[in-house]
């Protein structure tokens, strides 16, 4: 398996097969005298913006902090040991409803989409 080829930018689903995002970046741990070890994947606009450069990263982090408070100023992380299956999508053994990943979609549902009749 090659990390960049086979993991990065793949679709992520939770244990209910709900699409929760793409693998926007990969977090590895470097220990002295040990090979690097993948510890987590990151999801969300801040992780994505970091890949585009340091300026987009700063703006996105600022925007996220302004919109949804300090807690959202860092990307969402899912621990690598939660990986359940790697196929067309990567399935993590988590329940998206118990994370903050969908906070913005929940906000939209509550304040915008849910208020339109027929939603």
């Amino acid at each position, binding site marked *: 398996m090659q990390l960049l080829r086979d993991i990065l*930018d*793949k679709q*992520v689903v939770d244990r209910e097969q*709900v699409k929760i995002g793409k693998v926007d970046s990969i977090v590895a741990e470097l220990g002295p005298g040990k090979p690097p070890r993948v510890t987590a994947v990151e999801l969300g606009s801040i992780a994505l913006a970091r890949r*585009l450069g340091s300026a987009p990263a700063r703006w996105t982090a600022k925007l996220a902090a302004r919109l949804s408070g300090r807690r959202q100023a860092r990307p969402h992380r899912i621990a690598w040991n939660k990986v359940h299956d790697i196929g067309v999508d990567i399935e993590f053994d988590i329940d998206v409803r118990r994370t903050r990943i969908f906070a913005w*979609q929940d906000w*939209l*549902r509550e304040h915008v989409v849910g208020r339109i009749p*027929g*939603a």
Partner: protein
Amino acid sequence: MKKLLEISLGVVTSVGGFLEVGSMATAAQAGALFGFQLIWAVVLGTICIIFLVEMAGRFAAVSHHTIADGIRERFGFNAFIWPLLAVLLVNFLVLSAEIGGVAIAAELATGISFQWWALPVAFLAWLLLWKGTFGLIEKGVSMLGLVTLCFVVAAVMLRPEWKEVAVGAVPSLPHHDTAKYWFMTVSILGASISPYLFMFYSSGAIEDEWDKSYLGTNRAIAGLGMSFGGTISVGVLIVAALVLGAHGVNEVDDYNQLPLMLIPIFGFWGFVLFVASLAIACFGAALEVALQQAYLLAQGFGWNWGEDLKPRDDPGFSLVYTLTLFLAAVPIALGLDPLKLTIFSMALTAASLPLTVVPFLFLLNDERYVGQHRNGVFSNAAVIFVIALGFVLAVVTIPLQIFGGT
């Protein structure tokens, strides 16, 4: 039997998807000004889109990825962002043009200026997406789209010199209005080879849960559906050449000239048929482009998506098509000329092709995605041809916009 039904439905769907304001307007303009001479551009564009649609369907059926998923996963986000931005922009302009097309049809029918119709049209389209399912939109609107076959009937009833039609199917150099000739060529190609068409098709294949057993169905739908669509465009071109050209209307620069096309053949009903064709073809396309905009963002960023879900289950997805539809209606409501916008956005579509078509060359030859169903020599040659064409179009479009644009 079930497959046969599915093929015929698919063909109907692609006819509905193929014919929209762009192909109607460009074919009519080309016919009025150059007679049958530009039929070859419609034929060439149709052949190209057949190959691309077949590949998009095959990619989805075998790899269970849409084209947008595939581009992001295979090339990474930093590469994906360019086709993403280009397609978002082109789709937005095309959507605006389609809304304009429906609004013009409403103006022709009622006499009330098209500007007033832009927002009601957007609202109706939004309502269908909000409440409807993928099947309803795909099949229902496309069935109605068959009314556009009246152009083929009209073309046959006009008894054109079929020999001249055949001559027009072979590329030739213009005798007059050289810059305009090439600008029309670019616009026709842009109208036929629309990225939203093959990207939407791959999303549809995923929505309909295609697998490898659909490969034959896919080939039949792509070939027959797009050929039918191309035939209707040629029908529009022939009718425009024989009716508008013969009446001395060489410059179609006003939508009001277009309904004249069918009146000599069908009388008053010709007017009704034209208005219905324009309205339905553009409305169907508006639905597809708005959905495609939402598919593209949802697939690019990995959100939950699906036209069959309730809006509250995919709020990001449904909000994208909502905003897109209403924003795209704004330029028309402010009085931007739909015909000018159409021709402009078709040329821009052509220029954006390399960004969306280059990935096909890699995705459809990558065993990790398509396994043994890789592209053959023909398909690869077709992709390379479209890419080359796209590059040429991208380079010439901008000067032609300035010198040949209407």
